[in-house]
């Protein structure tokens, strides 16, 4: 029982960190540019397809991973320069409409290039198999690798934002867009860089997750919804909030699915306990979001609007 519990904790951490890769880009773009980007899930899909296509073509997962970063960042730069740039001064409804249209364009474009059937993408040989962790716990090496990669990216992102010149500009951009433009920072360039950074992180998440799931058109939208839940919980615009929110959502979702049916089984018969438990488990993260919003309307780490 202990090792099962420990395994579920690792699973929670892994799903939380993958969500963080998505949510951090979304929250950066919203915080710095004030833009609601529904097409963020499409960039995740672009990353997964690029990784699958290049891995199939070259036979190397690692080249696929590089390709996913580059393809998503490139798609991000193009989209930002051609379309998103015109939306910064519009209201949120216009942004939602335009980026929703981008979802349709990306989805049908991907279908046009790759077809309607899911692509194959598998774990590289070096990361297949399992390791035995303390407590006689057998855990897939690939999931462990994803956890480590997620932690490395999270630390890197905090260093980038906290310690570098670019980070100073990003934080300044969040605080007062007009003022840093007046101080001579090339605001257009900053926006493009931030957008590309967010896109690359989403593409990386797509490649990682595509390896364990199915690489298919429309894979980005369910993750996009979760990422929005995360940034609402964490506070819009806050990277720290995105990290805490991601871990909270990953933990709530995994543990809810695992424990709730068992909890109901203590006082219900097994089949209705399964039905009630799994129904409630699928609502749990939204209940958590509602609670957080009730207690702290601007999210855990959000600045008061």
């Amino acid at each position, binding site marked *: *029982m202990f*090792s*099962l519990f420990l*395994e*579920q904790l690792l*699973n929670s951490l*892994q*799903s939380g960190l993958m969500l963080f890769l998505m949510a951090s880009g979304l929250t950066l773009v919203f915080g710095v540019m004030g833009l609601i980007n529904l097409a963020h899930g499409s960039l995740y899909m672009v990353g997964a397809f690029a990784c699958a296509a290049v891995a199939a073509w070259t036979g190397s997962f690692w080249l696929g991973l590089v390709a996913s970063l580059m393809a998503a960042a490139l798609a991000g730069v193009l989209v930002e320069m051609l379309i998103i740039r015109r939306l910064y001064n519009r209201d949120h409804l216009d942004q939602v409409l335009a980026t929703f249209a981008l979802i349709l364009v990306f*989805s*049908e474009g991907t*279908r046009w290039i790759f077809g*309607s*059937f*899911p*692509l*194959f*993408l*598998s*774990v590289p040989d070096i990361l*297949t*198999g*399992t390791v035995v962790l303390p407590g006689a716990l*057998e855990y*897939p090496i*690939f*999931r462990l690798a994803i956890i480590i990669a997620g932690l490395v990216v999270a630390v890197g992102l905090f260093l980038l934002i906290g310690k570098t010149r670019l980070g100073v500009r990003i934080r300044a951009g969040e605080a007062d867009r007009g003022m840093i433009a007046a101080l001579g920072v090339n605001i257009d360039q900053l926006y493009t860089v931030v957008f590309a950074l967010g896109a690359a992180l989403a593409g990386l998440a797509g490649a990682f*997750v595509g*390896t*364990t*799931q*199915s*690489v*298919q*058109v*429309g*894979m980005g939208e*369910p993750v996009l919804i979760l990422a929005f839940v995360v940034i609402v919980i964490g506070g819009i615009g806050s990277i720290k909030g995105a990290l805490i929110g991601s871990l909270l959502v990953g933990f709530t979702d*995994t*543990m809810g*699915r*695992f424990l709730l*049916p068992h909890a109901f089984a203590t006082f219900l018969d*097994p*089949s209705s306990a*399964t*039905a009630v438990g*799994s*129904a409630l*488990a*699928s609502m749990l993260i939204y209940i958590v979001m509602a609670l957080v919003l009730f207690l702290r309307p601007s999210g855990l780490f959000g600045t008061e609007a």
Partner: protein
Amino acid sequence: MKGMKTTIAAVAALFAAGAAQAEPVKVGMITTLSGGGAGLGIDARDGFMLAVKQANNPDLQVVIEDDQRKPDVAVQLADKMIQQEKVDVLTGIIWSNLAMAVVPSAVAQDKLYLSVNAAPSQLAGKGCNANYFSVSYQNDNLHEAAGGYASSAGYKNAFILAPNYPAGKDSLAGFKRFFMGDVAEEIYTKLGQTDYAAEIAQIRASGADSVFFFLPGGMGIAFMKQYAQSGVNIPLIGPAFSMDQGILGAVGDDAIGFKNTSNWSKDIDNATNKAFVETFQAEYGRLPSLYAAYGFDTANLLLSAMGKASISDKEAFRDALRAADFSSVRGKFVFGPNQHPIQDIYVREVVKEGDVLTNKIVGIALSDHADAYASECSM
């Protein structure tokens, strides 16, 4: 004057061809052609249209629309097809929740509905209808066969999981109806869920000797890949939906050896099936899935009825459909009293033929199997 002559000639030709072919039949196909579940609808459509193309019958017209896997869109399309396009026959729906939204109202308006896939229990028992024919199966069938196979393979303690929606519940009910052993644990996952780490951890800890799962489309791909990565090696069993031709390529070699139950397979030995697999591959450049096979059979059933009766005489046309006088890719094909097929269900195993992953029959799970709801149907 010349126009008059051609008209007369055409009328004469019609009479010569006999009354049965005089009446054109218009078919409305509503199926999923975009979004996550598009592969299934595209296969059903391509199978159907292959038969239409081969028959080359000018009296058969087909209108095709995309339901985007959304019940509200499907209902709108059905209304449009019935009222505006004036179709005689509807077909094409893949998903049971969409079928429940469209079929009852369509058959109540005296339109025929021929199902290429979805066949929820609600339409097989008390809700059966003379205008509704399922060419594929009844939803529970393949799961029942999986339960029967698991028992005969000697499994005593199964861990079972399916998505938390009506067809998922039908699935686990069907499995349990024919499985003699114990159920170690029963789990309903979220519909569209893509990460199964939590469930696989429970499977690892459960001590079960077999795992039955029904996760169609992308859900099945995700589960299979993660299961293979997890190092858990309890044998998996499932219905063909978890391992159909459209999914195998994305799962890869991890799928090899997987046992699944199906009423169709590309190696069912009859001339119609052989020709179907060959022509489908030549036409579309890929192997057909079971959805394509159902589509192909549905079109051929309809064509056989058109050869026997006129669509304007509904009663005669229904009788012609009931007779099921066509050559099925499944070999023999008979309708039961509730107009669902009585058929053999096979056990298949995933194998690699050259570079291509596909299924091969390794035995029969249930023969001449009828569904559990037929007795509740009074027609």
